[in-house]
């Protein structure tokens, strides 16, 4: 039996090696394709049709929204697969395996399944709130992507107050979650919704202060400008003494904003079944899922813009670098998610108000002084 296991192990190792090689080749091909695609798009930009669309205000807005919405939806398909695969590997499992290459199309299959499912609205639910809640969650997420700079020119709307806009809009997610928790008329949902609301609002404070710390160092609120400043040195390297603590705080707050472990109290599976989306199924549930992962990408993207040099990197074009860094940061968040246990609600709030808020204030003051010193 042991011998059989060993050969099976060797076989498996060979298969795994093959898979890894295939994965690396595929990734390289993907990157090459992305670079080629980038240059193609850059060229297309100059064609008269695109130029016309770019100048027409309505068409411009429409085209950008179209691109952003599609990007958000499609990249989530990849992220969900990646999360499941990553978690699987981490847990001595294989993860999705059957639909497509290494289960790459699994999420598509799941999405199709969810979309085809019956749309169930509980009889005693508050119908209107229940129906609208998933979109209330999803909308702010979409909006935030409008200001996320994939490169200096690849940004939906180069808004002078980009960082503040992103923070302001993303907080509105809690409104949707509260609507879902209340509208479902379920006790678990209600508790989940209440927890989510308290949590998102509380962690918004240190999050905003940490972002302000970066602003203090950079001297600008525009995300594009913050990114552009890091062409030589990433913020986290150039201003390491203040930016490393700021990043740690930002990461913690981002995890809390995203309701991910260790802050997944709103959907704490063991206590609240699945919290605010207990009663949701089918398409509406898919929207929550979509929003969660899109938010995840956005938060990571924000961190990349603020701390990790935005779109700057050697060889590959800007948007590709930005995506790589962001996915890497998302992966780090997944890594944390699958390792640590969950906070309790009072500890979570206490941690925010007693530790994070003072710490972020200190970091902010330090950053302001550091910024003055650097500029002098």
């Amino acid at each position, binding site marked *: 039996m042991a011998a059989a296991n060993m050969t099976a192990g060797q076989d498996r190792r060979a298969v795994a090696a093959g898979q890894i090689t295939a994965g690396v080749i595929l990734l390289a091909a993907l990157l090459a394709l992305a670079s080629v695609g980038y240059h193609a798009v850059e060229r297309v930009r100059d064609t008269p049709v695109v130029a016309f669309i770019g100048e027409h205000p309505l068409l411009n807005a429409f085209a950008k929204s179209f691109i952003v919405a599609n990007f958000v939806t499609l990249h989530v398909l990849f992220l969900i697969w990646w999360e499941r695969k990553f978690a699987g590997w981490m847990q001595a499992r294989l993860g999705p395996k059957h639909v497509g290459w290494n289960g790459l199309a699994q999420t598509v299959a799941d999405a199709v399944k969810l979309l085809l499912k019956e749309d169930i609205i509980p009889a005693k639910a508050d119908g209107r709130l229940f129906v609208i809640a998933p979109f209330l969650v999803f909308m702010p997420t979409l909006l935030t992507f409008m200001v996320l700079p994939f490169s200096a020119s690849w940004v939906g709307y180069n808004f002078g107050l980009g960082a503040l806009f992103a923070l302001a809009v993303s907080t509105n997610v809690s409104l949707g979650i509260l609507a879902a928790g209340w509208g479902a*008329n379920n006790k678990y949902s209600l508790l989940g919704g209440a927890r989510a609301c308290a949590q998102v609002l509380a962690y918004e404070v240190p999050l905003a202060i940490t972002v302000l710390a970066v602003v203090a160092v950079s001297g600008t609120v525009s995300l594009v400008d913050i990114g552009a400043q890091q062409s030589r040195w990433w913020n986290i390297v150039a201003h390491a003494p203040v930016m490393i603590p700021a990043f740690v705080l930002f990461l913690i707050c981002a995890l809390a904003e995203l309701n991910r472990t260790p802050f997944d109290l709103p959907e704490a599976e063991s206590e609240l079944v699945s919290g605010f989306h207990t009663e949701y199924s089918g398409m509406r549930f898919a929207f929550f899922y979509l929003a969660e992962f899109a938010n995840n990408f956005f938060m990571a993207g924000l961190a990349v813009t603020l701390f990790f040099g935005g779109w700057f990197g050697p060889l590959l074009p800007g948007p590709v670098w930005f995506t790589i860094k962001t996915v890497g940061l998302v992966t780090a968040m997944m890594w944390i998610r699958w390792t640590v246990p*969950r906070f309790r609600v009072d*500890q979570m709030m206490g941690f925010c108000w007693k530790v994070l808020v003072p710490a972020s204030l200190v970091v902010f003051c330090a950053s302001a002084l550091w910024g003055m010193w650097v500029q002098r």
Partner: protein
Amino acid sequence: MAGSEAAQVRLEPDGGMTVNLGPQPPSTHGVLRLMVQLDGEYVRSCEPVIGYLHRGLERMFEARPYRQLVPFTDRLDYLASLNCNLAMSQAIERLGSVAVPERAQYIRVILCELNRLASHLVFFGTFAQDVGATTAFLYAFRERERILDLLEAMTGARLTYNWIRPGGVPADLPEGFAEGVLSFVRDLLKELPLYDRLLTNNPIFRMRTEGVGVISRDVAVAFGASGPVARGSGLSYDIRKTEPYEVYDRLDFDVPVYDEGDCMARYRVRMDEMCQSARILEQCFRDLPEGDIATKMPKVFRPPAGDAYSRTESPRGELSVYMRSDGSPNPQRVHVRAPSFVHLSMLPCLLRGVKLADVIAILGSLDTVLGEVDR
């Protein structure tokens, strides 16, 4: 805005809310239902409702001859069915004054300790799951899988083993079993520090478990807590030591005791017990004598009228079987004292005033198995 057209979540006049945790939530480890009165996140009171798994096993025992009782005990504590087999077999043996060959006793101890390891690994995994750490669960089950493979090689089954019988064990160790167990034990001892690193030392895990669900020594005694729950409350009470059965009096092992009485203490007791079980296994294989593996039992076993009591230390605590005979081939009464049953009865007084999240952590730390609660 809301509530105009639909009845909203019913609150009590003073703002309280009754939540029914169970009988099929993801976290109550079986079909346990907790009626929890909540005040916001705080628990006002809690009433466990059990019986969803009640099969009338004790009555079924009365309708069957002694030799057929043991398979049913697999269904008591299904995470450690060999320990239940042992309790039942011992009761029958004491009733009929049957002596068990020494080799059989060693094999029994080996099987029971392996099963204890498996059970504690399940505890580790599910407890981690209860406090929100997902990955530890799969690591624990990966190790447990190896125990199940070993036990499958020994008994042919993976969960309901039925391999400890009145009189001994039905078959000897298979080839390569000792090496398999010892190599597993070595690997497990290497793995346990990793578990500590992953979970025990994690500050969030410590915040969630330290000082939560404190059972004082007096309360533990008064409620009759046993096993890791009692030992987590500073009570050095292990039936393997106080009333040794089989060959436990010849084995050298420690009884881990922690004084704090909280979830962390119970967790640590179980983690330490895994090391002790590993020690016991190593000693058993070192000392394993040659000889018979079973005393021949008569086809129709008629013990003299009277009663017998067997107490064993199952992974959950004191699992004991009371058996009463009236001289006929079937027992007159069989009663199983299930540790989980006793521990669950502490729940209402443990849960008063804690937070909802702690309910799950405390319940997880008691490590109840509903199969033996409901019987």
